[in-house]
C-alpha cells in the first residue's frame, strides 16, 4: 500500500483508484437530485412538513458526501451551500420561501450540469457564483445581519462561517485537488484576532471553507480551524498574514478526520490522537486494544472467550460466526441493459423451441406417453413464467416519465404567465424501458402543447367562468394488452370550424361532412398548426406530426377527443412491450397470419346473406345492428388457393384507431404468445404488415397491421 501524501489527487488513496466508483456515484447523485426536485416542487411553502425537509436535506447531504469523497469540488461546494440552507430550514431557523425553492431548483439544475460535465459531456465550467451568492444571502437573511460586524455572538459566527464557504469554480481540471487542512493560530494575546480569518474566507470566494475545530473556544490563546481549499499553502498563509502574524500561523494537512473517545469500548491506547479527523471515546465499547491507561475499559471488542476451551486462550477473540453474513448484501443490483436484452433474446428463442415441442407433442399418443405430455405442459407453464419474469426486469414505472413534467410545467407556466396545475394518475403503471424511452419526447411535446395552446391565460379563464388555474392531467393505465396514456387539459379545446378553415387554407382535402375524429386528426398533418402566433414554447407546427409518427412507429396509436371551450384529451395507446405479444393465428388457404390479440373483438361463422355489397366494390357485414367493412385477407395478400371448394367463412372483428372491420379468414388456429421479429430490419417495410414471427412448427408468419387494414377499409 502506497503512502499517499495528503496532497495527492482525491481520486487516489490507499492504492485504490476511486474512479471505479464514479459511475455509481453519478447515478446515485442523479437519483438524489431527481428526488430532491420532486420534493421541492411538491413542498407546501406555508406548511412544509419536517419529514420532507429532512428528506430534501438528506438528498443534498448525500450528494455532498459523495462529491467530496470522490473529488468533485464544484459539486461538493454547491451542495454544501444548499445543505447549509436546508439545515436551517429543517431546524426551523428559517421559514421556507418561494425564492429559496427557486434557488434550490436552479442549483439542482447546475449540479446536474456539473455532473454531466464530470461525466464528459460539455466542457464549459458551470457558472455557479451567482447561485452561491444568492444562497448565502438567503442563509444570512434569516439571521437578519448581512455584513454584520465581526464581533457577533460566537454561535452566529459559527453558523455564518459554515455558510460562508466559497466557490471553487475550478475551470480546468475535472478532478480538483481539494485539501483539508488544520490551521493553528496562536498563541494570540487576543484570540478574537482569529475571527478575522472567517471574514477573509467570506471576502475571497475562491478560497474555500473555514470552520472552527474548537467550537469557538481558544485554548491557551490558540485557535484551531479546519480549512478545505484548493489554494496552495504558501498563498493561503500569505493571505492569512493580513490578519494574524506569520509566526502565529501553522498549517498542517488535516489527516482527514477521525477520532476515538477516550476510554470508549475498543478505543486505541493513545486516548486522543492529535489528529482531528477521527476519535475514540474514553471507556466506550469496542475501542482499540492495548494496555491503555484506562484499565476501566473491558477487554475491548473481545467476546469473552469461554474458559472451558483452554486451547483458545491465546486468541482472545473468538471467531465470530459469519456464514449468514455473506448472503446479506444490498438489495438491488445494477445490471447493464445489454445483459437483460441478451436474456430476453434467449428466452425468446426458448419460447420458440417450446412452441415447436408443444406442436410435436400434439402428434404423440398421450395415453402412451403420459409423462412426456405432462412434462411438456410443465415446460409450457415454466417457459411462460420465465418469460414474464424476464420481461418484468425491463419494466419500469411511468413515474420515470411523469416526474419530469411538474418541473417543466412550472417553468413553462411561469414563462407564459399562466397558472397550471399538474395531476398525474397511474404513475405506477409499468412499461418496457425501450417504450418509455421512446415515448418520453412525444409525451413532453403533448404536455407542452396543452400548456401552451390549451390552457388559457388566467384572465381569459376567469372571463369564461373557469377557475383561474388550469389543470393538465396525465393518466396511465393498462387496457388489455396495451397501455393507454392520456394527456388531458381543461383549456380551450379544439375548434372544428377553425381546423377546417385552416385545412382549406393549407389546401388539404377536407369537407364539412368529416367526422370530429377526422377533423381533430388534422392537427397531426405535417406543417399544421392552429396557434395563431408561433411561440418559442411549442414548435412552429412541426411536432404533432412527428409525435404521431413516433407513436405509430412504436406500434401505438393516437386519438383526440375535444370539446370546444372545455379542453381536450390526447389518448396514446401503446403496446406493453415491443418484443413479445399475444397473438391470434388465423389461416387463409395455406397461409397463417397473426393478429394482435388486443385488437381482436370477436369472431363468428358467416351465414349466407350476412355480407352485403354496397356502392359497387365495398362489402359490409351487419353485426348486432352495426355495419362494418369486410376485408378479404385472401385478396389483400393475393393468397394462392388450390382448393377451390373451400371458401373463407369465418369473420374476425378487429378494432383499431377507433374503427372496426371484419376480416374474412378460413380458420382460427389458436392463441399464443409470439416473439415479434422486425420485418423492416430484416427485409423491408411491407404494407399492412407490422412484423413477423416464427411459429411452433418453424414456419414464418406475418403479423398484420390491423390499424393499416382498418384505415384501408375506410376508403
Amino acid at each position: 500500500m502506497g503512502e499517499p501524501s495528503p496532497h495527492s489527487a482525491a481520486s487516489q488513496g490507499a492504492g485504490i483508484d476511486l474512479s471505479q466508483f464514479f459511475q455509481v456515484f453519478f447515478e446515485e447523485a442523479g437519483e438524489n437530485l431527481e428526488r430532491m426536485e420532486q420534493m421541492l416542487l411538491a413542498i407546501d411553502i406555508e406548511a412544509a412538513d419536517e419529514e420532507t425537509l429532512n428528506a430534501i436535506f438528506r438528498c443534498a447531504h448525500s450528494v455532498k458526501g459523495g462529491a467530496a469523497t470522490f473529488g468533485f469540488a464544484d459539486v461538493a461546494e454547491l451542495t454544501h451551500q444548499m445543505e447549509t440552507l436546508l439545515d436551517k430550514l429543517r431546524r426551523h431557523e428559517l421559514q421556507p420561501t418561494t425564492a429559496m425553492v427557486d434557488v434550490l431548483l436552479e442549483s439542482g439544475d447546475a449540479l446536474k450540469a456539473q455532473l454531466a460535465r464530470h461525466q464528459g459531456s460539455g466542457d464549459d465550467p458551470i457558472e455557479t457564483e451567482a447561485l452561491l451568492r444568492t444562497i448565502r444571502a438567503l442563509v444570512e437573511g434569516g439571521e437578519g445581519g448581512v455584513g454584520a460586524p465581526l464581533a457577533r455572538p460566537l454561535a452566529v459566527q459559527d453558523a455564518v462561517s459554515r455558510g460562508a464557504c466559497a466557490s471553487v469554480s475550478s475551470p480546468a481540471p475535472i478532478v480538483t485537488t481539494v485539501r483539508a487542512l488544520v490551521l493553528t493560530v496562536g498563541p494570540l494575546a487576543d484570540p478574537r484576532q482569529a475571527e478575522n480569518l472567517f471574514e477573509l474566507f467570506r471576502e475571497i470566494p475562491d478560497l474555500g471553507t473555514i470552520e472552527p475545530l474548537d467550537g469557538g473556544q481558544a485554548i491557551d490563546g490558540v485557535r484551531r480551524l479546519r480549512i478545505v481549499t484548493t489554494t496552495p499553502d504558501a498563498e493561503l498563509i500569505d493571505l492569512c498574514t493580513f490578519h494574524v502574524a506569520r509566526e502565529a500561523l501553522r498549517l498542517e494537512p488535516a489527516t482527514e478526520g477521525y477520532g476515538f473517545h477516550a476510554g470508549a469500548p475498543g478505543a486505541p491506547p493513545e486516548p486522543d490522537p492529535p489528529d482531528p479527523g477521527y476519535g475514540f471515546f474514553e471507556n466506550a465499547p469496542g475501542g482499540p486494544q492495548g494496555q491503555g491507561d484506562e484499565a476501566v475499559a473491558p477487554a475491548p471488542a473481545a467476546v469473552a472467550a469461554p474458559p472451558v476451551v483452554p486451547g483458545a486462550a491465546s486468541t482472545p477473540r473468538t471467531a465470530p460466526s459469519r456464514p449468514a453474513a455473506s448472503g446479506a448484501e444490498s438489495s438491488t443490483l445494477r445490471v447493464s441493459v445489454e445483459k437483460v436484452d441478451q436474456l430476453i433474446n434467449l428466452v425468446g428463442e426458448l419460447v420458440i423451441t417450446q412452441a415447436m415441442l408443444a406442436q410435436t407433442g400434439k402428434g404423440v399418443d398421450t395415453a402412451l406417453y403420459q409423462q412426456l405430455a405432462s412434462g411438456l405442459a410443465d415446460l409450457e407453464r415454466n417457459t411462460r413464467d420465465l418469460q414474464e419474469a424476464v420481461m418484468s426486469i425491463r419494466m419500469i414505472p411511468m413515474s420515470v416519465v411523469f416526474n419530469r413534467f411538474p418541473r417543466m410545467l412550472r417553468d413553462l407556466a411561469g414563462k407564459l404567465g399562466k397558472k397550471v396545475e399538474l395531476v398525474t394518475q397511474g404513475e405506477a403503471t409499468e412499461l418496457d424501458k425501450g417504450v418509455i424511452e421512446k415515448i418520453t419526447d412525444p409525451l413532453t411535446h403533448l404536455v407542452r402543447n396543452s400548456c401552451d395552446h390549451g390552457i388559457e391565460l388566467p384572465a381569459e379563464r376567469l372571463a369564461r367562468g373557469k377557475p383561474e388555474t388550469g389543470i393538465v392531467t396525465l393518466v396511465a393505465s393498462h387496457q388489455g394488452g396495451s397501455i393507454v396514456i392520456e394527456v388531458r387539459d381543461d383549456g380551450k379545446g379544439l375548434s372544428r370550424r377553425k381546423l377546417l378553415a385552416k385545412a382549406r387554407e393549407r389546401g388539404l382535402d377536407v369537407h364539412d361532412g368529416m367526422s370530429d375524429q377526422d377533423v381533430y386528426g388534422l392537427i397531426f398533418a405535417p406543417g399544421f398548426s392552429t396557434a395563431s402566433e408561433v411561440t418559442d414554447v411549442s414548435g412552429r407546427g412541426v411536432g404533432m406530426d412527428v409525435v404521431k409518427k413516433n407513436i405509430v412507429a412504436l406500434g401505438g396509436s393516437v386519438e383526440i377527443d375535444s370539446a370546444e371551450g372545455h379542453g381536450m384529451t390526447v389518448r396514446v395507446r401503446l403496446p406493453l412491450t415491443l418484443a413479445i405479444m399475444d397473438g391470434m393465428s388465423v389461416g387463409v388457404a395455406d397461409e397463417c397470419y397473426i393478429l394482435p390479440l388486443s385488437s381482436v373483438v370477436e369472431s363468428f361463422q358467416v351465414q349466407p346473406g350476412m355480407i352485403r355489397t354496397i356502392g359497387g366494390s365495398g362489402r359490409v357485414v351487419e353485426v348486432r345492428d352495426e355495419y362494418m367493412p369486410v376485408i378479404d385477407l385472401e385478396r389483400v395478400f393475393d393468397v394462392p388457393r388450390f382448393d377451390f371448394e373451400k371458401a373463407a367463412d369465418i369473420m374476425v372483428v378487429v378494432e383499431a384507431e377507433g374503427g372496426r372491420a371484419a376480416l374474412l379468414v378460413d380458420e382460427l388456429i389458436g392463441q399464443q404468445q409470439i416473439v415479434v421479429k422486425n420485418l423492416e430490419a430484416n427485409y423491408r417495410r411491407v404494407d399492412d404488415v407490422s412484423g413477423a414471427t416464427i411459429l411452433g412448427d418453424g414456419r414464418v408468419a406475418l403479423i398484420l397491421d390491423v390499424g393499416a387494414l382498418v384505415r384501408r377499409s375506410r376508403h
Partner: protein
Amino acid sequence: MHSILAVDDSASMRQMVSFTLKNAGFNVVEAVDGQDAWDKAGKADFDLVLTDQNMPRMDGISLTRKLRENPRFKSTPILILTTESSDQMKQAGRAAGATGWLVKPFDPSKLIEVIGKVIR
C-alpha cells in the same frame, strides 16, 4: 478473517468503503441504513461496525444506541462516519456508546489506518 458491518445509505460510499475493506482483507457486510444494519446485526456477529450518521429510517447514533443494548455488541467497536466534526456531534456519539468517529470525506488509506487501531 474479521467481519465488518458497513452502513451507509449512499451506494457509492458503500461501494467505496466495502471495496477498500475487502481489499484490505476484511469480510464486509453492507447495510443501506440503520434499520437494515440492525436487522443484519441480529443475524451475524461483527468485529466492527462502521456507520454513516445521516440516514433514512434509522441514523447512525440511534443504531449505535440499539447495538449497545444488545449484549453481543456490548464491546464491539462502532465507528461513526460523519461530515460534521462538531463537538455536539461527538458528544452525541459518545453518549450513544460509539467507539469513535471518522470525518467524511476520508480517503481509503485513512479508513484502513483507523480500523487498524481497533482491529488487529
